[in-house]
């Protein structure tokens, strides 16, 4: 089972939201899409599940009843109880009564929501509501599970529980695509796609992305160019586009870099390229 998009372009009201994006999502693995607000993450997922039509490019997806989609708003109905939310989705996907009670009891139990089944979704904490949204997306055992920022605003303990549920789905063979704004979380996936301004600026495993970024990164006492410097706690990191630092500092080894450092380097590179292009 392999799903995804090839050469995807999406224009929204005449403005390009996504440009030439490729994404592969295979059964039994998790693909993460990472980027800030406005990078195009949600648009990509909405195209993948068929909620918006691409301007150009191809989308590979299973039949709609084989897709589970959790929107960034969690997709729960606040005025319904936890049990009613789950029942409603079970009916929409025409699960048999036996299957419905088996799946919902099992999933609510594993999401630690069983005791909350009579509470209104609107009264749940953010973490619980996101877990409920996940349960509703995965209830009908879809081949493709698409999760839009499942952990945004979710506390660390609930986030670990949510990741366990996501991993269980992938371990059972489901193809999972998810978005996040946080790189430490993106790194858990087997493959990561970094979006910036609607374009893919990096894609691959976290090991591959850590070892192949443009230029070099140093840890100077004082930055030679503040526009290319950032912090890791109290220490400074600086990116050098041509690989060598002007003050002769040695570049950091892969083991001393975080994934976030290398993505910042890539984004600075994009910024540099954009400014050279626009120069007369």
């Amino acid at each position, binding site marked *: 089972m392999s799903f995804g998009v090839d050469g995807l372009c999406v224009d929204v009201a005449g403005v390009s939201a996504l440009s030439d994006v490729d994404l592969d999502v295979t059964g039994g693995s998790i693909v993460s899409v990472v980027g800030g607000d*406005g990078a195009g993450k949600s648009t990509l997922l909405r195209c993948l599940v068929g909620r918006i039509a691409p301007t150009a490019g191809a989308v590979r997806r299973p039949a709609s009843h084989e897709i589970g989609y959790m929107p960034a708003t969690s997709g729960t109905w606040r005025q319904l109880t936890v049990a009613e939310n789950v029942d409603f989705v079970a009916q929409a996907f025409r699960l048999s009564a036996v299957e419905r009670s088996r799946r919902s009891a099992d999933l609510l139990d594993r999401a630690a929501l069983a005791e909350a089944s009579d509470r209104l979704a609107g009264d749940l904490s953010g973490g619980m509501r996101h877990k409920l949204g996940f349960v509703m997306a995965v209830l009908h055992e879809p081949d493709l599970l698409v999760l839009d920022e499942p952990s945004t605003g979710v506390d660390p*303990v609930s986030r670990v529980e949510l990741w366990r549920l996501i*991993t269980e789905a992938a371990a059972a063979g489901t193809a999972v695509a998810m978005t996040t704004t*946080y790189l430490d979380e993106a790194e858990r996936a087997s493959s990561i796609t970094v979006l910036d301004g609607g374009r893919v600026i990096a894609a691959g495993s976290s090991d591959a992305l850590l070892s192949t970024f443009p230029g070099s990164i140093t840890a100077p006492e004082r930055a030679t160019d503040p526009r290319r410097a950032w912090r890791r706690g*109290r220490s400074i990191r600086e990116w050098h586009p041509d690989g060598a630092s002007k003050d002769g500092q040695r570049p950091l080894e892969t083991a001393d870099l975080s994934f976030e450092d290398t993505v*910042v380097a890539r984004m600075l590179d994009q910024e540099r390229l954009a400014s050279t292009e626009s120069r007369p």
Partner: protein
Amino acid sequence: MSGRSPGALLDADRATRRFGDVVAVDDVSLRVRSGEIVGLLGANGAGKTTLIRMLLGLLAPSDGDVAMFGTTPSRATRQRLGYVSQGLGLYGDMTVAENVEFNAHAFGIRPDQISLSDDLTSLSGRLVGSIGLGRQRQLAFACALGHRPELLVLDEPTSGVDPLARARLWESIRSEVERDAGVLVTTHYMEEAEQCDRLVLMAAGRVAATGSVGDIVAGRTVVAVAAASWSEAFSALGDAGYDVMLAGRRLRVVSDDVGAVGAVLRAAGLDGRLAVVSATLEEAMVAVDTAR
């Protein structure tokens, strides 16, 4: 009054807050001094919001003592504070320039004392609701910093912004610290927590751990598993009751008993390389939370 620490910008001394029978904050002491960034972490319901409301003077403690700049939080102390809430506190149906003027007026400074990036300046006539979350966050920061506050309180300061914008926001937080401001940050995210000089972890209303990232992680280990099939190893370890986290195609098992983890894999007929490695901050938090 005892316990007030001289020189602390924010000082909670055995602060407790009860709502009826519920103890939301239970005997919490926390200090923020000039020139340091303190991170406040905890699960939902851990009591962070109640503690912050007490520290800001919006809620009185039932027991214990809370001070800002060595005195009871008031309107006067708030003039020396920069606060960026999760909701950012901007007016979406006003322009960038109007928001700047409003904030300048509120703090008794001139609008040009709120320094905006070139990017934000070029958008000064736009409605704040239309400039995107990343820029709204930069604007909220600029507005909170214009009156050169001695203390900054930031609620999930970089949630939703891209990594480069996040790096730049942290750069501006650090430069405030270098001119001796003190900062209190609440966050759910480990990347933000790791930018702090000192962390306070709350669980069930109490302080569960405190110190640098290194102090909190110190001595805690997990078992890293590289198995031929991560999914089979994940299922076998999950069935055996372990907390297992995915890391690419490898697994991390919250356990200090590498022999027992190996035994579970062998019993399931699975092969894998095992290594004892340092826990991450997130794994340490899970261990602290489940141990209580």
